[in-house]
Protein backbone atom coordinates (compact mmCIF):
# COMPACT_ATOMS: atom_id res chain seq x y z
CA UNK A 1 0.00 0.00 0.00
CA UNK A 2 2.80 2.38 0.98
CA UNK A 3 4.70 1.19 -2.08
CA UNK A 4 1.74 2.19 -4.26
CA UNK A 5 1.66 5.64 -2.68
CA UNK A 6 5.37 6.10 -3.32
CA UNK A 7 4.97 5.00 -6.94
CA UNK A 8 2.06 7.40 -7.41
CA UNK A 9 4.06 10.22 -5.87
CA UNK A 10 6.97 9.54 -8.23
CA UNK A 11 4.66 9.22 -11.23
CA UNK A 12 3.14 12.60 -10.37
CA UNK A 13 6.61 14.10 -10.54
CA UNK A 14 6.94 12.79 -14.08
CA UNK A 15 8.65 9.44 -13.37
CA UNK A 16 7.18 7.21 -16.09
CA UNK A 17 9.05 4.16 -14.78
CA UNK A 18 7.08 4.43 -11.55
CA UNK A 19 3.80 4.36 -13.44
CA UNK A 20 5.04 1.42 -15.50
CA UNK A 21 5.62 -0.45 -12.23
CA UNK A 22 2.02 0.30 -11.25
CA UNK A 23 0.85 -1.05 -14.63
CA UNK A 24 2.92 -4.23 -14.21
CA UNK A 25 1.56 -4.76 -10.71
CA UNK A 26 -2.09 -4.36 -11.65
CA UNK A 27 -2.24 -5.53 -15.27
CA UNK A 28 -3.20 -9.08 -14.38
CA UNK A 29 -5.79 -8.43 -11.62
CA UNK A 30 -7.37 -5.71 -13.74
CA UNK A 31 -7.50 -7.86 -16.88
CA UNK A 32 -8.87 -10.80 -14.89
CA UNK A 33 -11.68 -8.57 -13.65
CA UNK A 34 -12.37 -6.95 -17.02
CA UNK A 35 -12.11 -10.29 -18.81
CA UNK A 36 -14.83 -11.80 -16.66
CA UNK A 37 -16.97 -8.73 -17.13
CA UNK A 38 -16.66 -8.56 -20.92
CA UNK A 39 -16.19 -12.27 -21.61
CA UNK A 40 -13.52 -11.47 -24.20
CA UNK A 41 -9.79 -11.42 -23.67
CA UNK A 42 -9.01 -8.86 -26.39
CA UNK A 43 -11.76 -6.52 -25.21
CA UNK A 44 -10.47 -6.90 -21.65
CA UNK A 45 -6.98 -5.88 -22.74
CA UNK A 46 -8.35 -2.85 -24.59
CA UNK A 47 -10.39 -1.83 -21.56
CA UNK A 48 -7.39 -2.30 -19.29
CA UNK A 49 -5.42 0.07 -21.55
CA UNK A 50 -8.17 2.65 -21.26
CA UNK A 51 -8.43 2.24 -17.49
CA UNK A 52 -4.68 2.75 -17.06
CA UNK A 53 -4.84 5.80 -19.31
CA UNK A 54 -7.70 7.27 -17.27
CA UNK A 55 -5.85 6.49 -14.05
CA UNK A 56 -2.70 8.18 -15.38
CA UNK A 57 -4.54 11.30 -16.45
CA UNK A 58 -6.37 11.63 -13.14
CA UNK A 59 -3.52 10.53 -10.91
CA UNK A 60 -3.44 13.96 -9.25
CA UNK A 61 -6.96 13.34 -7.92
CA UNK A 62 -5.90 10.15 -6.10
CA UNK A 63 -5.97 10.66 -2.36
CA UNK A 64 -3.34 8.64 -0.49
CA UNK A 65 -5.74 8.13 2.44
CA UNK A 66 -7.40 5.42 0.31
CA UNK A 67 -5.97 2.22 -1.12
CA UNK A 68 -4.68 2.65 -4.64
CA UNK A 69 -6.14 -0.70 -5.74
CA UNK A 70 -9.69 0.29 -4.73
CA UNK A 71 -9.26 3.64 -6.51
CA UNK A 72 -8.08 1.89 -9.68
CA UNK A 73 -10.90 -0.66 -9.61
CA UNK A 74 -13.41 2.11 -9.03
CA UNK A 75 -12.23 3.64 -12.31
CA UNK A 76 -12.48 0.21 -13.98
CA UNK A 77 -15.98 -0.37 -12.62
CA UNK A 78 -17.17 3.05 -13.80
CA UNK A 79 -15.60 2.32 -17.15
CA UNK A 80 -17.62 -0.89 -17.46
CA UNK A 81 -20.83 0.93 -16.46
CA UNK A 82 -20.20 3.54 -19.18
CA UNK A 83 -19.55 0.76 -21.67
CA UNK A 84 -22.82 -1.00 -20.81
CA UNK A 85 -24.74 2.26 -20.99
CA UNK A 86 -23.33 2.99 -24.45
CA UNK A 87 -24.15 -0.51 -25.62
CA UNK A 88 -27.49 -0.28 -23.81
CA UNK A 89 -26.95 -3.66 -22.22
CA UNK A 90 -29.43 -4.55 -19.48
CA UNK A 91 -28.12 -3.79 -16.03
CA UNK A 92 -29.64 -4.74 -12.69
CA UNK A 93 -30.54 -2.06 -10.19
CA UNK A 94 -28.82 -2.48 -6.88
CA UNK A 95 -32.13 -1.91 -5.09
CA UNK A 96 -34.02 -4.48 -7.10
CA UNK A 97 -33.96 -8.06 -5.83
CA UNK A 98 -32.45 -10.50 -8.28
CA UNK A 99 -35.23 -12.62 -9.69
CA UNK A 100 -33.90 -14.89 -12.35
CA UNK A 101 -37.00 -16.95 -13.10
CA UNK A 102 -36.50 -20.55 -12.14
CA UNK A 103 -33.04 -19.70 -10.82
CA UNK A 104 -34.36 -17.25 -8.27
CA UNK A 105 -32.28 -17.51 -5.13
CA UNK A 106 -34.13 -18.43 -1.97
CA UNK A 107 -31.69 -17.37 0.71
CA UNK A 108 -33.75 -18.59 3.67
CA UNK A 109 -33.87 -22.26 2.68
CA UNK A 110 -30.90 -24.58 3.06
CA UNK A 111 -31.21 -26.54 -0.13
CA UNK A 112 -28.63 -29.30 -0.42
CA UNK A 113 -29.90 -30.30 -3.94
CA UNK A 114 -27.96 -32.63 -6.20
CA UNK A 115 -24.34 -32.17 -5.19
CA UNK A 116 -22.15 -30.29 -7.65
CA UNK A 117 -19.17 -31.67 -5.77
CA UNK A 118 -20.25 -35.21 -6.49
CA UNK A 119 -20.91 -34.47 -10.14
CA UNK A 120 -17.61 -32.86 -11.15
CA UNK A 121 -13.90 -32.77 -10.33
CA UNK A 122 -12.38 -29.48 -9.10
CA UNK A 123 -10.82 -28.55 -12.46
CA UNK A 124 -14.10 -29.26 -14.16
CA UNK A 125 -15.96 -27.25 -11.52
CA UNK A 126 -13.72 -24.27 -12.30
CA UNK A 127 -14.50 -24.62 -15.98
CA UNK A 128 -18.23 -24.85 -15.26
CA UNK A 129 -18.00 -21.79 -13.00
CA UNK A 130 -16.36 -19.78 -15.80
CA UNK A 131 -19.13 -20.83 -18.18
CA UNK A 132 -21.90 -20.15 -15.66
CA UNK A 133 -20.32 -16.83 -14.70
CA UNK A 134 -20.97 -15.45 -18.17
CA UNK A 135 -24.68 -16.16 -17.78
CA UNK A 136 -25.42 -14.48 -14.45
CA UNK A 137 -26.44 -10.80 -14.19
CA UNK A 138 -23.50 -8.43 -14.54
CA UNK A 139 -24.27 -6.70 -11.22
CA UNK A 140 -23.82 -10.02 -9.38
CA UNK A 141 -20.94 -11.19 -11.55
CA UNK A 142 -18.96 -8.05 -10.85
CA UNK A 143 -19.20 -8.37 -7.08
CA UNK A 144 -18.38 -12.10 -7.25
CA UNK A 145 -15.27 -11.40 -9.37
CA UNK A 146 -14.09 -8.58 -7.12
CA UNK A 147 -14.46 -10.86 -4.10
CA UNK A 148 -13.13 -14.18 -5.36
CA UNK A 149 -10.92 -13.37 -8.33
CA UNK A 150 -9.47 -10.07 -7.14
CA UNK A 151 -9.69 -11.03 -3.47
CA UNK A 152 -10.96 -7.69 -2.21
CA UNK A 153 -12.55 -7.66 1.22
CA UNK A 154 -16.28 -6.98 1.47
CA UNK A 155 -15.48 -3.54 2.88
CA UNK A 156 -13.20 -2.72 -0.05
CA UNK A 157 -15.84 -3.84 -2.55
CA UNK A 158 -18.38 -1.67 -0.74
CA UNK A 159 -15.95 1.23 -1.18
CA UNK A 160 -15.36 0.51 -4.87
CA UNK A 161 -19.06 0.19 -5.67
CA UNK A 162 -20.41 2.72 -3.18
CA UNK A 163 -22.71 0.11 -1.65
CA UNK A 164 -23.41 -0.89 1.96
CA UNK A 165 -21.30 -3.86 3.11
CA UNK A 166 -24.44 -5.90 3.87
CA UNK A 167 -25.67 -5.43 0.30
CA UNK A 168 -22.31 -6.55 -1.07
CA UNK A 169 -22.33 -9.69 1.11
CA UNK A 170 -25.86 -10.50 0.05
CA UNK A 171 -25.11 -9.98 -3.65
CA UNK A 172 -21.98 -12.12 -3.55
CA UNK A 173 -24.00 -14.85 -1.86
CA UNK A 174 -26.73 -14.57 -4.51
CA UNK A 175 -24.09 -14.84 -7.24
CA UNK A 176 -22.65 -18.00 -5.68
CA UNK A 177 -26.00 -19.67 -5.25
CA UNK A 178 -26.97 -18.74 -8.80
CA UNK A 179 -23.72 -20.24 -10.08
CA UNK A 180 -24.35 -23.41 -8.08
CA UNK A 181 -27.83 -23.77 -9.50
CA UNK A 182 -26.66 -23.13 -13.05
CA UNK A 183 -23.96 -25.76 -12.61
CA UNK A 184 -26.44 -28.26 -11.22
CA UNK A 185 -28.56 -27.73 -14.28
CA UNK A 186 -25.70 -28.21 -16.72
Amino acid at each position, binding site marked *: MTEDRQLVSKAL*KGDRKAFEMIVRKYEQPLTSYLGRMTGEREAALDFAQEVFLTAYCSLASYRPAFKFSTWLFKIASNHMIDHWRKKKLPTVSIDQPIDDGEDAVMPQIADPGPSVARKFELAE*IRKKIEQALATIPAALRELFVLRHVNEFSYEEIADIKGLPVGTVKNRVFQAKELLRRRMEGS
Partner: protein
Amino acid sequence: MTTCPRPENLYLYLEGELGPYDAAKLEEHIEGCAACRDALAERRVLHEAFTSLSPFEVPDDFARSVMDNLPEPAVRKAGWLAPLIAAVSALSVGLLGFNLFTGTSVLEVLVAVNGFFGSALARVAPLLAKTLKLLNVLLDVAVDLVRLGFTGLVTFSRVLGPQGIALVFGLGALLTILAVFGARRFLHEGEHS
Protein backbone atom coordinates in the same frame (compact mmCIF):
# COMPACT_ATOMS: atom_id res chain seq x y z
CA MET B 1 -31.18 -28.82 18.18
CA THR B 2 -30.79 -25.24 16.89
CA THR B 3 -32.39 -24.17 13.61
CA CYS B 4 -30.53 -24.74 10.35
CA PRO B 5 -28.20 -21.85 9.44
CA ARG B 6 -28.90 -19.69 6.42
CA PRO B 7 -26.94 -20.81 3.33
CA GLU B 8 -25.40 -17.34 3.28
CA ASN B 9 -23.77 -18.10 6.60
CA LEU B 10 -22.27 -21.33 5.26
CA TYR B 11 -20.28 -19.29 2.71
CA LEU B 12 -19.35 -16.65 5.27
CA TYR B 13 -18.20 -19.44 7.61
CA LEU B 14 -15.97 -20.88 4.87
CA GLU B 15 -14.55 -17.44 4.16
CA GLY B 16 -13.82 -16.88 7.85
CA GLU B 17 -16.20 -13.91 7.79
CA LEU B 18 -18.61 -15.26 10.40
CA GLY B 19 -18.04 -13.98 13.92
CA PRO B 20 -16.65 -16.45 16.50
CA TYR B 21 -20.01 -16.82 18.28
CA ASP B 22 -21.97 -17.55 15.09
CA ALA B 23 -19.20 -19.84 13.84
CA ALA B 24 -19.31 -21.86 17.06
CA LYS B 25 -23.11 -22.10 16.86
CA LEU B 26 -22.90 -23.28 13.25
CA GLU B 27 -20.26 -25.92 14.09
CA GLU B 28 -22.40 -27.15 16.97
CA HIS B 29 -25.45 -27.40 14.72
CA ILE B 30 -23.59 -29.25 11.98
CA GLU B 31 -22.54 -31.96 14.46
CA GLY B 32 -26.11 -33.12 14.67
CA CYS B 33 -27.58 -32.16 11.25
CA ALA B 34 -26.64 -34.36 8.29
CA ALA B 35 -28.39 -32.10 5.74
CA CYS B 36 -26.40 -29.04 6.80
CA ARG B 37 -23.20 -31.13 6.94
CA ASP B 38 -23.74 -32.13 3.30
CA ALA B 39 -24.65 -28.56 2.33
CA LEU B 40 -21.47 -27.28 3.96
CA ALA B 41 -19.34 -29.99 2.31
CA GLU B 42 -20.68 -29.06 -1.09
CA ARG B 43 -20.13 -25.35 -0.55
CA ARG B 44 -16.63 -26.08 0.68
CA VAL B 45 -15.78 -27.66 -2.69
CA LEU B 46 -17.41 -24.74 -4.50
CA HIS B 47 -15.61 -22.26 -2.28
CA GLU B 48 -12.30 -23.93 -3.14
CA ALA B 49 -13.12 -23.63 -6.84
CA PHE B 50 -14.36 -20.02 -6.51
CA THR B 51 -11.14 -18.96 -4.83
CA SER B 52 -8.82 -20.69 -7.29
CA LEU B 53 -10.11 -19.45 -10.64
CA SER B 54 -7.25 -18.86 -13.08
CA PRO B 55 -6.10 -15.31 -13.70
CA PHE B 56 -6.25 -13.97 -17.25
CA GLU B 57 -3.01 -14.20 -19.18
CA VAL B 58 -1.55 -10.82 -20.08
CA PRO B 59 0.92 -10.46 -23.00
CA ASP B 60 4.51 -9.71 -21.95
CA ASP B 61 4.52 -6.42 -23.85
CA PHE B 62 1.20 -5.20 -22.41
CA ALA B 63 2.75 -2.75 -19.93
CA ARG B 64 5.06 -1.43 -22.66
CA SER B 65 2.11 -0.81 -24.98
CA VAL B 66 0.21 0.96 -22.17
CA MET B 67 3.22 3.20 -21.59
CA ASP B 68 3.61 3.93 -25.30
CA ASN B 69 0.01 5.15 -25.45
CA LEU B 70 0.25 7.47 -22.47
CA PRO B 71 0.41 11.21 -23.06
CA GLU B 72 3.47 13.18 -22.03
CA PRO B 73 3.76 13.39 -18.26
CA ALA B 74 1.67 16.12 -16.76
CA VAL B 75 4.40 17.23 -14.41
CA ARG B 76 3.34 19.78 -11.92
CA LYS B 77 5.13 22.97 -12.95
CA ALA B 78 6.91 24.60 -10.08
CA GLY B 79 5.53 28.10 -9.55
CA TRP B 80 8.22 30.82 -9.89
CA LEU B 81 6.35 33.67 -8.27
CA ALA B 82 6.16 32.25 -4.73
CA PRO B 83 9.91 31.43 -4.47
CA LEU B 84 10.76 34.87 -5.95
CA ILE B 85 8.55 36.69 -3.44
CA ALA B 86 10.00 34.57 -0.63
CA ALA B 87 13.57 35.32 -1.71
CA VAL B 88 12.97 39.09 -2.05
CA SER B 89 11.14 39.18 1.31
CA ALA B 90 13.93 37.25 3.02
CA LEU B 91 16.57 39.57 1.57
CA SER B 92 14.64 42.69 2.54
CA VAL B 93 14.08 41.48 6.10
CA GLY B 94 17.72 40.45 6.38
CA LEU B 95 19.04 43.81 5.19
CA LEU B 96 16.58 45.73 7.34
CA GLY B 97 17.50 43.66 10.38
CA PHE B 98 21.18 44.16 9.70
CA ASN B 99 20.60 47.90 9.36
CA LEU B 100 18.58 48.17 12.58
CA PHE B 101 20.82 46.02 14.76
CA THR B 102 24.30 47.06 13.59
CA GLY B 103 23.58 50.58 12.45
CA THR B 104 25.42 49.80 9.22
CA SER B 105 23.64 51.32 6.26
CA VAL B 106 22.12 49.09 3.63
CA LEU B 107 24.40 50.67 1.06
CA GLU B 108 27.49 49.67 2.99
CA VAL B 109 26.26 46.12 3.24
CA LEU B 110 25.63 46.07 -0.47
CA VAL B 111 29.06 47.39 -1.22
CA ALA B 112 30.58 44.66 0.94
CA VAL B 113 28.50 42.00 -0.82
CA ASN B 114 29.45 43.49 -4.15
CA GLY B 115 33.13 43.28 -3.34
CA PHE B 116 32.70 39.68 -2.27
CA PHE B 117 30.86 38.43 -5.32
CA GLY B 118 33.07 40.28 -7.82
CA SER B 119 32.58 41.49 -11.31
CA ALA B 120 29.29 39.82 -12.24
CA LEU B 121 27.44 41.56 -9.48
CA ALA B 122 29.39 44.75 -10.15
CA ARG B 123 27.53 45.18 -13.43
CA VAL B 124 24.16 45.43 -11.79
CA ALA B 125 25.43 46.89 -8.54
CA PRO B 126 25.19 50.61 -9.52
CA LEU B 127 21.53 50.27 -10.40
CA LEU B 128 20.86 48.14 -7.37
CA ALA B 129 22.85 50.56 -5.21
CA LYS B 130 20.78 53.50 -6.39
CA THR B 131 17.58 51.61 -5.74
CA LEU B 132 18.74 50.56 -2.33
CA LYS B 133 19.97 54.06 -1.56
CA LEU B 134 16.51 55.32 -2.36
CA LEU B 135 15.03 52.59 -0.21
CA ASN B 136 17.47 53.52 2.55
CA VAL B 137 16.35 57.15 2.42
CA LEU B 138 12.69 56.08 2.47
CA LEU B 139 13.40 53.78 5.40
CA ASP B 140 15.17 56.59 7.30
CA VAL B 141 12.19 58.87 6.65
CA ALA B 142 9.79 56.14 7.84
CA VAL B 143 11.86 55.52 10.98
CA ASP B 144 12.01 59.29 11.70
CA LEU B 145 8.26 59.60 11.22
CA VAL B 146 7.58 56.73 13.61
CA ARG B 147 10.03 58.18 16.12
CA LEU B 148 8.40 61.62 15.78
CA GLY B 149 4.96 60.16 16.25
CA PHE B 150 6.05 58.21 19.30
CA THR B 151 7.78 61.26 20.84
CA GLY B 152 4.69 63.32 20.16
CA LEU B 153 2.50 60.74 21.81
CA VAL B 154 4.75 60.59 24.89
CA THR B 155 4.80 64.40 25.16
CA PHE B 156 1.02 64.59 24.71
CA SER B 157 0.40 61.96 27.38
CA ARG B 158 2.75 63.80 29.78
CA VAL B 159 0.82 67.02 29.21
CA LEU B 160 -2.56 65.33 29.72
CA GLY B 161 -1.58 63.36 32.80
CA PRO B 162 -3.28 60.09 33.89
CA GLN B 163 -6.76 61.64 34.21
CA GLY B 164 -6.48 63.24 30.79
CA ILE B 165 -5.42 59.95 29.16
CA ALA B 166 -8.35 58.15 30.80
CA LEU B 167 -10.70 60.87 29.52
CA VAL B 168 -9.34 60.62 25.99
CA PHE B 169 -9.67 56.78 26.00
CA GLY B 170 -13.20 57.06 27.42
CA LEU B 171 -14.27 59.54 24.76
CA GLY B 172 -12.66 57.40 22.07
CA ALA B 173 -14.53 54.29 23.26
CA LEU B 174 -17.81 56.22 23.41
CA LEU B 175 -17.35 57.56 19.87
CA THR B 176 -16.50 54.06 18.60
CA ILE B 177 -19.65 52.57 20.18
CA LEU B 178 -21.78 55.34 18.75
CA ALA B 179 -20.24 54.92 15.31
CA VAL B 180 -20.80 51.11 15.36
CA PHE B 181 -24.42 51.37 16.52
CA GLY B 182 -25.08 54.20 14.08
CA ALA B 183 -23.70 52.17 11.20
CA ARG B 184 -25.75 49.10 12.20
CA ARG B 185 -28.93 51.16 12.40
CA PHE B 186 -28.15 52.77 9.06
CA LEU B 187 -27.64 49.36 7.47
CA HIS B 188 -30.79 47.98 9.13
CA GLU B 189 -32.89 50.82 7.73
CA GLY B 190 -31.26 50.35 4.35
CA GLU B 191 -32.41 46.70 4.30
CA HIS B 192 -36.02 47.70 5.05
CA SER B 193 -36.22 50.59 2.61
